[in-house]
C-alpha cells in the first residue's frame, strides 16, 4: 500500500497551484496555469477566418486547440518540436473538454484558435493545459456556461491520490492515471481518460476526489480572472 506520498502531501491534496490571465498582450485572451512544477500557457486568437476554409462551419464557430511541449519542458531528453501522435491526441481531447461550455453559434464561418504551450512538465500536463485554455477563453470574453477545471486522480499501489507527480506516475508499483475535466457548477465531466486496471467502485471514488479538488482549483481560477480588473 502506498501510505505516505513521496512529497508528503495528503491523498486529497493537489500541488501548489497558481493562475494568471492577460499575460500575453498580443492574444485576445491568455492565461498561465501552474501546478507543482507543471506550467502551461494558453493563448486565444479569434474568432477569425480560418484556413483551410472547408474546415469552417456555417452553423457555428469552430474551436481548434493545439497542445505543444516546448523543447526544454520534458523531464529527460529534449522534446523534438512539432506535433506527434501524443500531442495530436491531447489537442483533440482538449477541444472536446472545452466545447460543452462554449457557445460558438454567434460566430458561424469563423474559427477560434487556442494555443497551449507547456514550458515545463512534471505530470498532469494535459490537465494544466485544459485549465489554462479555459481561463484564456474566459479572459478573451467568450460566453461560457462555466469554467472547465481539469485535474488528474491516480491510484498508486491501490491508494487513490489527487494530482500525481511524475515521481508517483513512475512509481515502482501499479499506477493508474485518471485525468478528469469537470464543470464545477454541475459536476459534469468533459474529459475522462484512464490507463491501468481499476474497479468500477474505485473509479467513482476517484471522481468524487477530482470534483472536490476541481472546486478548489476553480476558486484559484476565479481570483485570477477578477484580479486582472482590480
Amino acid at each position, binding site marked *: 500500500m502506498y501510505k505516505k506520498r513521496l512529497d508528503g502531501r495528503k491523498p486529497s491534496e493537489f500541488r501548489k497551484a497558481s493562475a494568471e490571465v492577460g499575460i500575453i498582450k498580443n492574444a485576445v485572451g491568455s492565461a498561465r496555469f501552474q501546478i507543482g512544477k507543471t506550467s502551461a500557457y494558453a493563448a486565444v486568437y479569434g474568432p477569425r477566418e480560418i484556413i483551410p476554409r472547408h474546415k469552417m462551419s456555417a452553423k457555428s464557430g469552430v474551436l481548434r486547440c493545439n497542445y505543444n511541449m516546448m523543447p526544454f519542458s520534458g523531464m529527460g531528453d529534449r522534446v523534438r518540436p512539432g506535433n506527434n501522435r501524443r500531442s495530436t491526441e491531447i489537442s483533440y481531447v482538449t477541444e472536446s473538454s472545452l466545447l460543452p461550455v462554449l457557445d460558438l453559434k454567434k460566430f458561424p*464561418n469563423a474559427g477560434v484558435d487556442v494555443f497551449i504551450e507547456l514550458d515545463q512538465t512534471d505530470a498532469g500536463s494535459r490537465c494544466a493545459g485544459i485549465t489554462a485554455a479555459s481561463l484564456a477563453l474566459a479572459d478573451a470574453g467568450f*460566453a*461560457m456556461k462555466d469554467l472547465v477545471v481539469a485535474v488528474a486522480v491516480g491510484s498508486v499501489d491501490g491508494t487513490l491520490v489527487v494530482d500525481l507527480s511524475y515521481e508517483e506516475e513512475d512509481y515502482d508499483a501499479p499506477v493508474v492515471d485518471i485525468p478528469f475535466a469537470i464543470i464545477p457548477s454541475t459536476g459534469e465531466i468533459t474529459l475522462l481518460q484512464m490507463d491501468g486496471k481499476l474497479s468500477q467502485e474505485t473509479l467513482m471514488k476517484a471522481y468524487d476526489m477530482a470534483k472536490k479538488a476541481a472546486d478548489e482549483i476553480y476558486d484559484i481560477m476565479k481570483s485570477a480572472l477578477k484580479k486582472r*480588473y482590480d
Partner: protein
Amino acid sequence: MLKCKDKEIVVPGEILCEGMEFLPSYGTYRADKVIRSSIVGLVNIDGKVIKIMPTSGRYFPRRGDTIIGRVFDITMNGWRLNINSPYSSFLTMMEASSQFIRKGSDLSKIIPMEGYMVGKITNVTGQNLIDLTMKGPGLRKLDGGVIVNVNSSKVSRIIGRQGSMIKLIKEATGCFITVGQNGRVWLSGEAKNEVIAINAIELINEKGHKKGLTDEVKKFLEKETGKKLEVSNV
C-alpha cells in the same frame, strides 16, 4: 435573492442570484433556480434586470456604428476592409464618394492597400457580411496619423458623456482624433502631443471601468501639457 453586488466583477459560472425574482439579461443565463454569469464582466443591476457589462474588447458590428477600417484587399468594384471583426466588410465604389468614379479606375488611388478610413456600417447581413459607406459627415479616408487599438467596451469612456472626455484630450493636445466604435482610434498632431494623447487614451483603456477616471485623465493632461483644462459638463 441577490448573491452579488452591483459593479462587482464576476466570472463564467458564478451565481448572481437565487430564485425567480430577477430577470436574466445580457451575459447571464438561468439554470435551475439560479441565474449565473456567462462572461467575465461587471454586474449591472437595473431594477429587476441583471446583466453583465463585458470587460473584454470584442467588437460586435452594428448598423449605424462609425468605425475605422483598414484595407486588406482591393477588388474590381470596391475595397475589403478589416474592422476588427471576424467577418469581411465591404465598401463599394458607389459608397466611397459622392463624385462619380469611372469603372476601371485605379481604386488604390482613392484608398490604398493598408489604408485607413472612417466609415459607417449600413448593413450587417444574415451571413455576417458588413456593408460600409464613406458618404456622410465626418466619413473620409485617413492620411498619416497614428492608430491606437483599444478595448471596444472602453470606447464610450474614451468619448465620454456628450463627448466631454475626447474633447478634453483634443483641447490639451491639439490633435485631430477620431474614435471608431470598433476599438480603433486615429489621431494626428504634433509628434510630442501625439505621445501625450496616446498615453491618455491608454490610461482610459486600462482603467476605464474604475471611478474617478475623468479627474485622473485631466490631472495627467494638465501635468504633461502645462495647460489648465476644464471638463465640459453638459
